[in-house]
């Protein structure tokens, strides 16, 4: 297994390199630049601005220079949009917020999603299943930009239990985490139900049952292992997404997280910030997909590390 992980980590280097390079050049071909503004900047000023930010140099020179700074110094450069902050600072500042929001939402999603999914699968095609599945479907049908404001209207404005938005006290965590958690809970519930049903009828489960194993033991010891495969595959990229923040939730609730930077940096053509967030996200995706592959082997003893 260690060899497997070591090989995968080695593979990460070219993957990150390709992502970085592709993103660097992609964003330069997008119309509009960091200094495109409603009040047009005069050509002289634009020339001076580009010189000040080294944008007047040939693209490959900018690229090699950027690469050198990232690889040798871990320096992601200054932000174009926020000139008094560096990309490293912005990420260091905002990632913890998104991590916290994501971790709490993930907890809600896992607990609620797995419970609903397992219940629905075990009692498949009974009323319990219908209730659980429908609850999950509501989570899917209610987009976050609807659920968030609804929760605010109810709990903040009608009942006065929470603030409409902000990220100050513990109370401020509840509504955004709930909103974000609900969507993922719904996905997890659906995938768990599907995965469990696949497994519950497999021969080895029957064998276990025939051997007289109790229902709970069958579910948790045997069925859940195989049944979680699709959920685990889904969770790799999903966790990367959830931990790096959600644009919609962070905007609706005014949360100073990284999710807004992901989307806004592209809109602002903040070249360095785009690259910084992409590198971070890529690293997370790669790491989590590696974890998923390891977990999959662990869940399925028939597999071996190749």
């Amino acid at each position: 297994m260690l060899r497997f992980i070591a090989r995968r980590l080695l593979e990460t280097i070219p993957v990150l390199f390709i992502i970085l390079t592709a993103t660097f050049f992609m964003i330069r071909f997008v119309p509009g630049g960091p200094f495109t503004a409603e009040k047009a900047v005069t050509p002289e000023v634009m020339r001076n601005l580009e010189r000040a930010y080294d944008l007047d140099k040939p693209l490959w020179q900018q690229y090699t220079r950027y690469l050198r700074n990232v690889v040798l110094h871990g320096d992601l450069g200054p932000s174009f949009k926020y000139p008094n902050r560096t990309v490293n600072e912005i990420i260091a500042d905002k990632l913890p917020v998104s991590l916290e929001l994501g971790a709490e939402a993930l907890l809600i999603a896992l607990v609620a999603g797995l419970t609903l999914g397992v219940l629905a699968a075990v009692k498949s095609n009974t009323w319990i299943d219908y209730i659980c599945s429908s609850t999950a479907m509501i989570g899917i049908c209610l987009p976050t930009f609807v659920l968030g404001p609804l929760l605010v209207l109810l709990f903040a404005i009608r009942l006065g239990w929470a603030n409409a938005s902000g990220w100050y006290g513990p109370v401020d965590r509840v509504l955004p985490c709930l909103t974000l958690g609900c969507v993922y809970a719904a996905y997890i519930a659906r995938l768990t139900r599907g995965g469990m049903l696949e497994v519950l009828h497999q021969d080895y489960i029957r064998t276990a049952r025939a051997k007289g194993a109790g229902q709970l033991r069958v579910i948790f010891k045997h069925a859940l292992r195989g049944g979680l495969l699709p959920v685990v595959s889904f969770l790799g990229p999903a966790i990367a997404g959830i931990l790096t923040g959600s644009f919609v939730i962070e905007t609706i609730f005014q949360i100073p997280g990284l999710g807004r930077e992901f989307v806004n940096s592209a809109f602002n053509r903040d070249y360095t910030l785009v690259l910084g967030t992409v590198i971070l996200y890529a690293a997370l995706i790669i790491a989590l997909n590696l974890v998923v592959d390891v977990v999959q082997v662990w869940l399925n003893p028939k597999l071996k590390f190749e």
Partner: protein
Amino acid sequence: MVSLSPQNLPSADLTTDQLERGTSLWRDAWHRLRRNRLAVFGGTVVIVFSLTCVLAPWIFHLSYQDQNLDLGAVAPNAQHWLGTDTLGRDLLARILYGGRISLMVGLVASLVALVIGVSYGAIAGYVGGTLDSVMMRIVDIMYALPFTIFVILLMVFLKDPMQAVDAWLGRFSIFGFHAFEGMQGVGKILLLFAAIGAVEWLTMARIVRGQILSIKKMEYIEAARSMGLGTPRIIFRHMVPNVLGPVIVYTSLTIPAVMLLESFLSFLGLGVDAPMSSLGTLIKDGSEKMEEFWWLLVFPGGAFSLTLFSLNFLGDGLRDALDVRASKD
């Protein structure tokens, strides 16, 4: 002839009756599906709603774009069954026309994602080794590339081909009948499919690969291999049908995601041009006015939910129907 479907291979308990009737996986499934009342209900709703949307111009007299500014937004009444929006346009008409777009985008883009994701994941999982590594690292790369920028680039570089498609459709005629006249923006819709398909297949591929790995070592696959069947045949005939359960479940989750993604893409300028709308954009607009004009959120949201519920019932039914083992319990 008995089709060599994976279920038949290992099962000694197949009745001769079934063998004689030449039951195939699909026919079996169809039988079981028809017995599942929820699935039948779901399927009926989907078909009825789709037909209503497609036939809207012929069966519904109000237009999605005729404004009545002095009327403004009014609650449901005898004339406008679902009320009107702030520009006085009939909401039912807008939902029906929006439903056309959303259903088309949801179904076609999900299908694109499904086909790419399943083939890709199955091949990577079955072949394994270096090919698997390379293919899955490509998936990692695709995950990480910034989607917003990708979409903007797609629009910039494919703007001319898009317009060429539109122009060609505008000129296209059969026996002097201009079938696609006035269908501006078809090129944009095609591009929309490409953009969505390009991202949505990734998770599908990973799920399928995981499933394929888990059944790769099972007896019937070994048996098929020992019989000297070709790799493509093994993958698509024997392995893919066995991982259809999670695939169907995930597809039924992709459809709503795609429909909502469409409203984000229309913000980027990709999608249908105003005044045409989609369910996603109607819901988005409605969510900002929910306190004043509840019907602008409730009805588009209702249509969206009804479609998704139905699709999921149908999906669950399909999953159950394709799960041969379940039927034996």
